């Protein structure tokens, strides 16, 4: 746990910690030696990172540092980009998700994702939520589906605002509501992990505060990884923070420790605003 934090073995040891409020949290996802290439250009260099369950892990760093690229490795969204190649192991529930035998389509139903800009489908609010359960056959009947939709919207804290207009289009909601709709949509397929790629960057401060409250609520059930440009947000919502720079993992640890007592000089410079 000393200065050589980027060594994978030490980090994986650091991932298993006692959390006084929730008992033992073990790494839900264990990333080992991840490299990502776009064509000939390497975007991520040998990153090893454990991600604990039932907590929020924040990925911070300046633009272009590879944090979004890393996030997209976790549900193999990089597969949809032709030139992108990922190497290394990502162990989730005892399986390496980069294994060719793993079906990325099924994997993505276990690892939900929320994007930077709210992107509801051009369908009704109800159909937005019901889309995932329908394609995965999660609901046996219309009542089941109604129940899933209601539960997802409740968990996303949107139910009271939209329960009377489930048939109106998703685009008719405000930006913050749309983003919560997208979170509800991700929850509806019963994921274990939720990835959030700067979920508040397109929202005003009030809507941001709502989403942050929601993230804090959701971490009781899900393993959450969030990419954010706002260090205050990372400090507010996350339990663990990883600092990326130029495609490398500079430092990771408890959020309090990263923000109050960083071990690396680069981390300190970044969080105090000296670069980035």
């Amino acid at each position: 746990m000393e200065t050589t934090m980027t060594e994978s073995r030490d980090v994986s040891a650091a991932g298993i910690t006692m959390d006084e409020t929730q008992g033992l949290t073990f790494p839900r996802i264990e990333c080992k030696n991840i490299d990502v290439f776009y064509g000939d250009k390497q975007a991520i260099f040998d990153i090893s990172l454990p991600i604990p369950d039932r907590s929020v892990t924040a990925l911070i760093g300046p633009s272009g540092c590879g944090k979004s690229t890393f996030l997209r490795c976790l549900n193999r969204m990089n597969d949809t980009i032709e030139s992108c190649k990922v190497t290394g192991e990502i162990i989730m529930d005892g399986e390496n998700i980069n294994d060719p035998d793993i079906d990325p389509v099924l994997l993505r139903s276990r690892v939900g994702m929320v994007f930077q800009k709210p992107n509801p489908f051009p369908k009704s609010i109800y159909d937005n939520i019901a889309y995932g359960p329908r394609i995965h056959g999660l609901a046996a009947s219309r009542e089941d589906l109604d129940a899933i939709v209601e539960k997802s919207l409740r968990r996303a804290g949107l139910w009271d605002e939209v329960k009377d207009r489930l048939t109106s289009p998703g685009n008719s909601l405000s930006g913050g509501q749309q983003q919560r709709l997208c979170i509800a949509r991700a929850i509806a397929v019963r994921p274990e992990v939720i990835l959030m790629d700067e979920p508040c960057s397109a929202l005003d401060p009030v809507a941001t505060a709502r989403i942050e409250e929601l993230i804090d609520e959701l971490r009781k059930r899900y393993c959450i990884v969030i990419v954010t440009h706002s260090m205050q947000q990372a400090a507010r919502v996350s339990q663990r923070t990883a600092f990326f720079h130029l495609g490398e993992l500079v430092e990771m640890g408890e959020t309090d420790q990263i923000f109050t007592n960083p071990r690396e000089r680069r981390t300190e410079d970044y969080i105090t605003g000296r670069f980035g």
Partner: protein
Amino acid sequence: MVQQLGHLPMGWLMLALLAMLASGAFFVGRVQAARFSGPGSARVHSRPNYHGYYVAMWTFVPAMVVALGYGLFGDGLVRSMLSSELPANFQDMPRVELDVYLNSIARAAFHHGYSGADRVFSAITNRFLELQGLIKASTIVLALVCAATGFLLARRRVAPGFRARNRVEGGIEIFLFLCAAIAIATTIGIVASLLYESLRFFAEIPFWDFLFGTRWNAQTSAEFGALPLFFGTFMIALIAMLIAAPVGLFAAIYLSEYAGPKVRGWVKPILEILAGIPTVVYGFFALLVVAPAIRSVAIWINTTLISTGLASEPLLAAQPTSALAAGLVMGIMVIPFVSSLSDDVINAVPQTLRDAAYAMGATKSETVKHVVLPAALPGIIASLLLAVSRAIGETMIVVMAAGQRARISADPTADLTTITVQIVALLTGETEFDSPKTLSAFALGLVLFVVTLFFNLIALRVVQKYREKYD
């Protein structure tokens, strides 16, 4: 002397004159402005060049208006002046004959070829040349006067505080507007002439008899029931769209969602080449390859049905030209319209929507079916409507492969005729512009215009609505 002026080449002369005047005015304005604007003088509004453009503009435009006026009305003016001077026996001539006579005068004057003709003719030709010379000379003088007036007025305004730059900008705007107005004016003119001739037709043939009559026989007897033509047009467009809509749409989906950049780089240009093949080539392909093939298949079906006892007489018409042949080939012709437009529309669906669906564990085809297509649907409908109006207005393929017989028959192997085929038939060969036979072509053209306009308008509206959907 005045006669010699009649031979002036006005087009070239005016062009050279205008260019010289404009460039001269430009330099004068520029030099004048350069006197007060240097690096040191800060309070000058526009740079010397703009003053030059401004003066040139005001010199050029008035002279140009005069030149255009001559181009449009000069010849008519000469003729009316000449015909008012002609002796009495010419005044009694019918209008058409007089025009023909004046045409031959103008031709003789132009070619200097009037020496051998009779005395009256050569006298009139000389007078024609004199009048022409008069008009040409006064046009040039008028143009020069107008240009000079404009030049002097504009030059007086050249001053440090004068906003020549903004004035030139205004002039450019007017010029661009006029260019746009030409297209609109042409459209209005065409529609007006269609309407006018159609009204003449409907004065003789009742409107409802034309629209809902079932017998069309314009060439031999005067039967103008256009319903069989509408039916034929509709039938062939339907067959074409049955081919083009699915094939074009699926090709667009493949290109935009499945094909890699390499395949796309090859397939898309090839599909667009299909749109560049002249329709007459499609036409003889339909006539020489597709129609005989359809005919032999139809004959085979007929004989099989009869030999197995399922039918007692031939079921299909099996004509050498058929609705099916024309429709099939036209369908192939419109595929690129559908695929290219749909491809653009599908590409315009934000990538974030696809990402959202993929991130929820949807496969590519599920994403296309549930997310991409519904989002792109208005645009796809618009592309289909544009393809329909293209198919309805298409002429060459149907002229060659659909036949000439006007009839209402659901049998696709029978020959049919369409609006466009009949227009071609009515207006080619010997025609007389006053008979209902020829005028009916205008009425058909009007119907065609209204129908395609209707489809295009719907398509435009749908596209506009679609644009509001994102951002």
